[in-house]
Structures are given as C-alpha cells and as structure tokens.
C-alpha cells in the first residue's frame, strides 16, 4: 500500500464513520478542534481503522499524541511498515 493509498483510505474511513465531507479532510485539519470529534469518537475511529486496515492499534500513547490528520496518516504508515 503506497502512502497515497493509505491517506485515501484513512479519509474514506473517517468520512464514512463520521459523516464528513472528504474534501474537508486536509492533512492539517485537527481531529478534535476542527472536526469536533471527542473521546467516544476516538474509540470508534480506532475500531473503524483497525477493521479497515486489518491491524491492531494498541499503542495508546501514540494514539493520544495524534492531533491532526497528518499525525494519523503517519501513525498508520508506521504501523503498516512495522507489520511488513
């Protein structure tokens, strides 16, 4: 999976899960402040991403550090690379 494909996939998952316009999901967008997501949404985001990418996201510290979509792209890229 290329980096671009990962980005597209993350945008697809988030836009479907949270009923968001995919065009608004730019890398610099902040998940909580800009998209209005909260702690419950964070749980559901992980569930949706794990299911979609077929991997576990168990590093809670790394997840807590995610602020922007760019952070999320990078985290998933890292996890995908580690799984190779």
């Amino acid at each position: 999976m290329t980096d671009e494909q990962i980005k597209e996939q993350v945008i697809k998952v988030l836009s479907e899960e949270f009923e968001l316009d995919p065009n608004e999901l730019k890398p610099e967008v902040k998940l909580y402040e800009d998209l209005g997501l909260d702690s419950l949404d964070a749980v559901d985001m992980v569930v949706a991403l794990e299911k979609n990418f077929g991997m576990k996201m168990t590093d809670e510290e790394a997840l807590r550090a995610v602020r922007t979509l760019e952070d999320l792209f990078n985290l998933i890229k890292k996890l995908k690379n580690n799984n190779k």
Partner: protein
Amino acid sequence: MNRVVITGMGAISPFGMGVETLCSSIWQGKSAVKFMKEWQHIKGLQSLLAAPVPYIDEKKLIKRALRRTMGPMAIWSVLAAREAIKDANLTSKELSSGYTGVILGSTTGSPSIHEAFYREFLPEETIEGVKSGVFFKIMGHSCAANVCLDLKIKGHQWATTSACTSSSQAIGLGFIILKMGLQEIMLCGGADEVHPTVTMVFDVLKAASRKNDSPNTTPSPFDKNRDGVVCGGGAGILVLETLESARKRKAKIYAEIIGFSLNCDSQHIANPDSHQMATVMENALRDANINTKDIDHINAHATGTTKGDIAESQAIKKIFGKNTPTSSIKGHIGHSLGAAGVLESIVAVECLRRQQLVPTLNLEDPDPECDILLVQEEVVPQKLDIVLKNNFALGGVNTSLIFRRWNNNDR
C-alpha cells in the same frame, strides 16, 4: 398541590411521524399491522405479525454526534419530544431552567441493538470492534438520556421500566412530581421497538395472535374470536405542566390530568387480576375526587388476549356498570408496550378535543364475557368531559389515568 395540564404532544407511531398522522389514521379506521415475512425463518415463532414504525431517514433529522448513542427507540423518542416541545411552544431557556424534566419508559433498551451486539460478541466472545455508543443504546434509560441531551434539559431524568405500563407510569409519575411542585414542566412518555424477541415473549405464553393470513383483522380486542397480542413500535411524549406555569406562559392547554393510580397484583407474574384492575380504577377516581358517573369514556388497555380483555371488562363492569362507552386502539396499532400508554393517552386527549369516540378496530362479534358498552364500527359524536385510561403490564402492574377536557374558561 399544583394542578397539572397537558400542553404539548408528540408521536412516532406505526403510521409514521406526528400526532396528526397517528390520529388521522385512527379516525379513518386504518390498521398498521403487517405480516412479518422476515421472521419466517425463526423456529417455533408462530406469530408473524407486528405493527412496525415505517422507515424514517434519521440522518436528515438528527446530527451524527447526537445520533451515535441512539437506537431506534431513542431516535423516535427524540423526534416525538421535538414535536411535543414545538407544540407546547417551549423555549430553550425553559428547557434548560432545571425545572423541566423528562420521564421516559421502555421495556428494555433497544432490542435491535442488543441483537447486533450479541451477534458480534458471542461467536468468538470478543469485544474487539464494539463501538462506543452501544451501551448508551441498550441501557434502560436510553430514551430519557438521549432526549435530555438533545433538548439540553437539566431537571429531573427518570426512566420507568415496566413493559406495557412504562409510559403510563411515566405520565403518572410526572403528574405526581408536578403536583408536589418538584418541577414545573415534565416531558413524559415512552417508546418500544418491534423485534422478534419482543413478540416471542407473548408467543411463548400463547398470548400472541397467529392470524398470519389476515394481518388487518387482528388484534381484535373484546371480540369473541380474538387470539392475542400483536406487538407494535413507536414513541410518544406528553408535555405535562403545572397550571401556574402554563398560564404564565399563556400556553395552549389540551386537557387536565386529574387523577392517577398505580398498584400491583402480587397474585401471578403473567395472569391479569380483575380485582386489582378494579381497585386501581377506583383509586384513580378517588385521587381525582370524582364519581363513577363522571367518567364519560374508558380508553381500555385491552390488548386482544383471551384472559386480559375479560379481566378488564369484569373490572370495568364492577366499577362502572355497563353504560360507560369503552374502546381500545390496539386494533389499529397493536400493542406498542412502552409506548402504548402514551400513544393511547394522546388518542384519549384527542377524543376529548374532538368530542368523539373512536371504535375498537376489528371488533365484529363482541365476546359475551366482555359484557360492557363497547364502541364498535364507527366514530361516534359524544359529549366528553372526563376519560379514564387503563394500562396493565406483565409483572402485575396496573395503572389508571384520568383526563379532563380543558375549556378556556376553566379556572
């Protein structure tokens, strides 16, 4: 003690959205009962009938951030509550004052969400993949909590859970709270969903209708050929308010609640008890400080079961004799359990407003054992000042509410 009036109503019923849809369908004598072909594969289930709520595009009506914790019954409760507060002309300031509360009952939390959860959980006993909103959809106070959140209500939050009397208890409890002055406005009602596990409860007890070939003839309360309950879905809300608050707001008043009583059988967990049904009606009359002759109409619980309709008829005959016109709307919408009391109360209030009696749908050949004055066949004009509304539940709960017509000259 405060006087308590009804200043708003909202409904989601098997006929669709809105009080007007519910009442116009009932006044036209329509049946919402359907053959449930999607239940045909369920082994042993002999009643394949229900009155489900039609499809509602909730995504267009409720934002995702609120909807994520709602199962169907909570969604319908929110939509009914929004209709009711609009009808009552309540402001956001009044809703958030701390003196407005909510009491909503249901048999359980959402059964469809329960099913979805266990389908995912049980095969491998894993909670991986469980979404954060599941608990909030299946908890017993799901409807009440979600309505409070949606409307930013900050007063009382209660959930009355007693199956078929859930919403009549809610109205009764709201009446008590307002009489005592603990709150000024209460949104009271309840909800339930059509689900095979709900119909199963009655099917197992041989109390669910099996007229699968003729859905529009059943249930048939008080009829000699009745064969049981047909479960329905829906949600309903009454805005109850102290008379003082309603007058201060110059609110439109539909009716006054003048009496309520609640008791239990403690005889048998499932069998109806005519004696305690009679007692609960007597106590409601006493609470309202009126006599039997003051009751112009009884909106019965009458679900269409063999035993239940006879027990209620005997209780009515014992207290009122044979001259008080009685009907049940379960022939139209089935038994919506947690929503039954409130949807039927809405119809009872509408009878007061229109000065008309609605007949019991599917009542063609009255059972001689239901030896009371039954309203049959057509809508009848009738001078109505006071109506009594019964609801009874498995578990032995009996409730009676008494509504009085409101005239603008009333003091």
